[in-house]
Every structure is written in structure tokens, then in C-alpha cells.
């Protein structure tokens, strides 16, 4: 058994024979027998054909990997329209009397060398994009078709490098995974592989003797085993099977409504704690983001993040979700989540202390910065704002007043703002008791069952000695949830759960019977939950 390491771009496992893919060298004649004007005609026709192909690839990618990731093919089309690029091709044809394919290949190499020499890693990765479009046009001109990529049995593809268009064009049924020598985790190829759920390793030093040998690509451990030992092979097969189960679940459920056998519908959203988790939300086909924990922006910075920095992040998430709902919870810092620059005092009882909305309402400038950033992002999709740790009607009114102030300021500046729903977390017994009054103030409730359970049972979940006393299904908690749903509905408020209890499959039926409108769970829990919902029949007697 031989082991080689690289950098994994997707946590996944692929098992199968390796196939080394070598790009056919383009045979280009340098000297043309045609006039420069005729060569330019040929180039222009090939360029238009390439544009058509790229438009097709864009549609394919849009369907498979979403708008943000498909955008690269739009960029490719624009690159093929770039004046400097076209001028360079024309100059070579005109002054050296070359063939169009020679001119476009040379131009591609020159532009790509410029990008490759840049200091910024992201821009260096663009060198591959320029080569990709030039190669596309040259292939059309020479009538080349890349065979070899999809031929034969399913295999793990091994190549020096793969372009984004090669990645999208690959026949997924024959591609188990891929390994490249070059490329960066920043490249569009890497991003596409991640979104298409293809295990891949980059930066692997391979040799030609690998061709045809059995291998295990272990994306979890950043390595590939060639001629794996029996025992390892068996373990990896198991792991692969459990991954596949998840994948097939996805295929069966994709785009299907979350509706019980007797027709009761419930929304299933995902919780995220970082802007980079959006990929997982889309991969698992969640209908929206039910809880976007905005704290990470604060916890990852050395100082208060500016309004513009926050806006850029929110906007990215909102745009990627393309119109699906994104519920952003405002700053929930304090207790176990500390950022030094907030200069919070050490407290005896942090869980009962100065945290979340309590900080926001007393440090109004910090709060306003975040609200303005969220409001500005709302122009780019569907955004809701949710306030945490509410215990009184007055807090909700105060928070809404500050929000109205921000809205008025932005509108006065002529900044576009979308329609924003306002909701609160129900995570204190006080909020449950006041649910009727609170429901008249907001559009929705989201039950934070982790804190609600802790505050209701007076049990610190961090303390292992209390495990015997801790019951996540405690009737007191379940009654609190029921009360909240009923009170919310009395006043036209929709009610969801964004705590861990939402993913507890033994309670799903109970929640549906209570009339919850939404469950928001971690991305990996979305599919099992949706599968269960679609198998339940509430018209028969309760099973619990």
C-alpha cells in the first residue's frame, strides 16, 4: 500500500481505479495559408460558438451548483468579449500572418502568464480561467474533442490540472473523485467540486505508474491510498456507504415539498454559524436559513466589525440564497461567547447576565451598525431580523424603534431596502408567559429550545453531574412550546424552532401536531428530517 497526501477540498470518500487523464496537445499550425481577414473571420465564428457553449454550461451549472458558482461561466463569456484580449489575437493574426488557433493559444498563454505572476493568490488562480477560454476557442477551430475524460468505467480521475469547464462537463456517473497536481482550494474548479459533492484532492504528486491501480481517496484525511490494504478498504467502504445514503436521500427529496401524507406542510430551514456554511445549506436543499448566527463576525474580529464589512458578508449570504428566506439573528454575545474588545465584566452567572439584546439596547451604536448592514443587505433577497433573549414587550418595542430609526436614516440617504420581517427568539420562560402580548409586536417567533430548556429546568447543560436530571423531552418544556405556538397563531404570528430539539426525530410528529410552521436544524439534519415528515400521517392516531 502506498500513501500520498494533498489538500482535500471535500470531505468525502471515493474508491475505485485511478485513471490518468492527459490533455491532448493541440496540433496547431502556426503559418496560415489564408489572409489575415479570413483567419479573423474563422476566429470570430469560433468565438461566437464558444460563447454559445458557455451559455449552455452556465445553464447546466446554474441547475447543479447555484447562481453564485455558475457565475464563472458568465465571466468566461465576458473574457471572450474583452477588448484587450481580442486586440491581442488580432494583432498576432495581422502581423505574423498566423492561423487563428495559433493566435488564440498564444494570447491565452500570455494573459495567463500575467495573472500567474500576480502576488494575490486569488488572482493567480484566474490564470486557469484564461487558458480555459482560449483552449475552448482553439478546440473549436481545430475540431478537437476531448475524448478520454468520460470514457470507460467509473474511475478516480488524475490530472495535472482541471479547468472549471472540464469539471462541470464531467459525466458524474463515471467520475468517482479527482486528484490534481496543481490548482488551489480557491480555484473555481475546487469550488465547483465542493458544490457538486465530488471528493477531490489537490496538490498531489503522482506518477504515471498509478494509472489503473485501485485507490481510496480519503477526503476526510487529505490522502489517497494506492493498492489499499483489505482492512482499510473495508472501513472506507462502510464510510462511503453512509455518505451515499445521505446523497441518495438528497436525490429523492430534492425540490419536493415537506408535506405529510395527509397534506400538512411544514418548512425546513437550516441553521448556520458562518457565511461559508451557505454551500451546505444549498447542498442539503434546505428551503431557507432559519437562524444565521451573526456572532461569528464579531468573534472573528479584533475590533468592532464596520457596517460595510458586515454588509458585504450578509449580502453574500442573501444573494447566494437567491430569494430564499434568510433570518439573521442580531448579535448574541456574552455568556460563553466573548470578544475581548467588548470589555465585558466577568460575571458570577453569565447565562443570566449581560448578553445579547441586553448589550444591544445599552450599546445602541454597535446595534445600529449591525441593523443598518442587515437592512442594506435586505435589498438583495429575502431577509428577516430576529432579536435574541427577549423577556419583555418593552425590549421588543425598544429594538423595533431603533430598527425604525435605521430604516429612516437609510431611506433618507436613498439606500434601497427590502421588505423585512421582524421576529424574536422565544428562549426564556418569561417570553413564553408573555407570548400573547409579544405576538402582537412581531411577525414570527423562533423557539430557542437550548436556552429555553436550561432556563425552564434550571439546569446548566455544561455540568455533566446534572445529566441524570436533564430531560430534553421534559413535559414542562413541551408545554411551553405548545403554549407559544397557540399564542403566536392567535395573533397571526408564525412559529418555528431553531434549537436542537427541532432536529429530534422522535418529536417531529409531536411538533407537527402542535402546529409548528417551521423547523430550522443544522444542514446535515435537514434531509433525514424531511424524509420523516413525508412519511408521517397525522390523520391516524398519534404513535406516541
Amino acid at each position: 500500500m502506498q500513501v500520498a497526501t494533498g489538500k482535500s477540498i471535500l470531505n468525502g470518500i471515493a474508491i475505485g481505479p485511478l485513471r490518468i487523464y492527459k490533455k491532448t496537445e493541440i496540433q496547431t499550425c502556426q503559418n496560415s495559408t489564408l489572409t489575415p481577414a479570413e483567419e479573423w473571420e474563422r476566429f470570430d465564428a469560433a468565438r461566437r460558438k464558444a460563447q454559445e457553449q458557455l451559455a449552455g454550461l452556465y445553464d447546466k451549472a446554474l441547475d447543479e451548483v447555484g447562481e453564485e458558482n455558475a457565475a464563472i461561466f458568465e465571466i468566461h463569456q465576458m473574457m471572450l468579449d474583452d477588448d484587450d484580449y481580442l486586440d491581442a489575437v488580432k494583432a498576432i493574426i495581422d502581423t505574423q500572418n498566423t492561423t487563428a488557433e495559433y493566435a488564440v493559444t498564444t494570447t491565452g498563454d500570455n494573459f495567463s502568464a500575467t495573472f500567474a505572476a500576480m502576488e494575490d493568490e486569488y488572482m493567480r488562480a484566474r490564470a486557469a480561467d484564461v487558458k480555459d477560454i482560449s483552449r475552448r476557442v482553439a478546440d473549436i477551430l481545430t475540431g478537437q474533442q476531448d475524448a478520454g475524460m468520460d470514457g470507460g468505467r467509473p474511475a478516480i480521475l488524475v490530472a495535472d490540472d482541471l479547468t472549471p469547464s472540464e469539471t462541470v462537463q464531467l459525466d458524474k456517473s463515471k467520475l468517482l473523485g479527482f486528484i490534481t497536481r496543481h490548482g488551489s482550494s480557491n480555484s473555481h474548479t475546487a469550488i465547483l467540486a465542493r458544490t457538486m459533492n465530488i471528493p477531490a484532492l489537490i496538490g498531489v504528486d503522482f506518477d504515471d505508474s498509478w494509472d489503473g491501480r485501485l485507490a481510496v481517496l480519503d477526503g476526510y484525511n487529505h490522502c489517497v491510498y494506492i493498492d489499499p490494504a483489505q482492512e482499510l478498504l473495508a472501513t472506507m467502504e462502510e464510510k462511503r456507504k453512509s455518505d451515499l445514503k445521505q446523497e441518495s436521500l438528497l436525490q429523492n427529496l430534492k425540490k419536493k415539498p415537506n408535506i405529510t401524507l395527509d397534506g400538512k406542510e411544514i418548512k425546513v430551514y437550516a441553521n448556520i454559524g458562518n457565511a461559508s456554511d451557505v454551500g451546505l445549506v444549498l447542498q442539503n436543499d434546505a428551503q431557507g436559513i432559519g437562524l444565521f448566527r451573526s456572532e461569528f463576525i464579531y468573534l472573528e474580529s479584533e475590533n468592532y466589525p464596520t457596517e460595510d464589512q458586515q454588509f458585504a458578508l450578509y449580502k453574500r449570504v442573501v444573494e447566494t440564497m437567491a430569494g430564499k428566506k434568510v433570518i439573521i439573528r442580531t448579535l448574541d454575545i456574552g455568556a460563553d461567547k466573548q470578544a475581548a474588545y467588548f470589555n465585558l465584566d466577568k460575571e458570577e452567572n453569565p447565562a443570566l447576565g449581560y448578553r445579547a439584546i441586553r448589550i444591544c439596547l445599552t450599546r445602541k451604536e454597535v446595534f445600529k451598525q449591525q441593523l443598518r448592514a442587515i437592512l442594506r443587505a435586505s435589498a438583495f433577497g429575502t431577509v428577516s431580523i430576529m432579536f435574541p433573549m427577549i423577556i419583555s414587550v418593552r425590549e421588543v418595542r425598544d429594538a423595533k424603534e431603533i430598527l425604525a430609526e435605521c430604516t429612516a436614516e437609510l431611506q433618507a440617504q436613498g439606500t434601497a431596502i427590502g421588505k423585512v420581517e421582524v421576529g424574536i427568539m422565544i428562549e426564556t420562560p418569561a417570553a413564553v408567559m408573555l407570548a400573547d402580548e409579544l405576538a402582537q409586536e412581531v411577525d414570527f417567533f423562533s423557539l430557542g429550545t437550548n436556552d429555553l430548556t436550561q432556563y425552564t429546568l434550571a439546569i446548566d447543560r455544561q455540568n455533566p453531574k446534572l445529566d441524570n436530571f436533564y430531560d430534553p423531552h421534559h413535559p414542562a418544556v413541551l408545554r411551553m412550546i405548545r403554549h407559544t405556538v397557540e399564542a403566536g397563531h392567535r395573533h397571526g404570528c408564525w412559529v418555528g424552532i431553531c434549537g436542537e430539539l427541532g432536529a429530534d426525530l422522535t418529536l417531529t410528529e409531536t411538533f407537527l401536531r402542535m402546529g409548528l410552521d417551521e423547523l430550522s436544524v443544522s444542514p446535515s439534519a435537514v434531509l433525514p428530517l424531511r424524509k420523516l415528515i413525508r412519511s408521517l400521517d397525522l390523520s391516524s392516531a398519534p404513535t406516541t
Partner: protein
Amino acid sequence: MKQFTYTITDPVGIHARPAGLLVKAAKALDSAITIEKAGGKSAPATKLMALMGLGVKSGDTVTVTAEGGSEEASLAAMERFFQENL
């Protein structure tokens, strides 16, 4: 000739996608728009590769110039574009 300066807040700078959007936006205007990076390198906002070649990163300051046509309106459109996308 009119101009404004802007400091990039997008974490990756003027990368492929915003550069593409910028080209589209600039082509729609009747003024010639130039982007100049602090330090001297500049590119017309209608040229994608040249723009990307500037290598403008987060935190960099750029000067945006509009020349010819309705300069004021063009510059206002550019300012809005930068605030929303970069």
C-alpha cells in the same frame, strides 16, 4: 472630469464576479470610466482582464474617474455600484 475615491471592503477585492458586474455597469454609461489603484496602475472600467490585472485587494483605495458625457450621473452610478458590490 470628475472623480471619487473608495476603499474596498469586499474580502476578496475586485475579483472576477464584481469585475464582470463593473464592466457591465460601466458599459451602460455614456462617460469613460477609469479605475486607478493607489500607486499609479489604472484600467478602463470596461476592460475585464485589465481590471482584474490591477489586483485590487480588500483595504486598497481606488480612484474612480468619469470623463465625457453626463459625468455627474455616471459617477453617482459608479459610487452606488462600489458601495453595493465592493
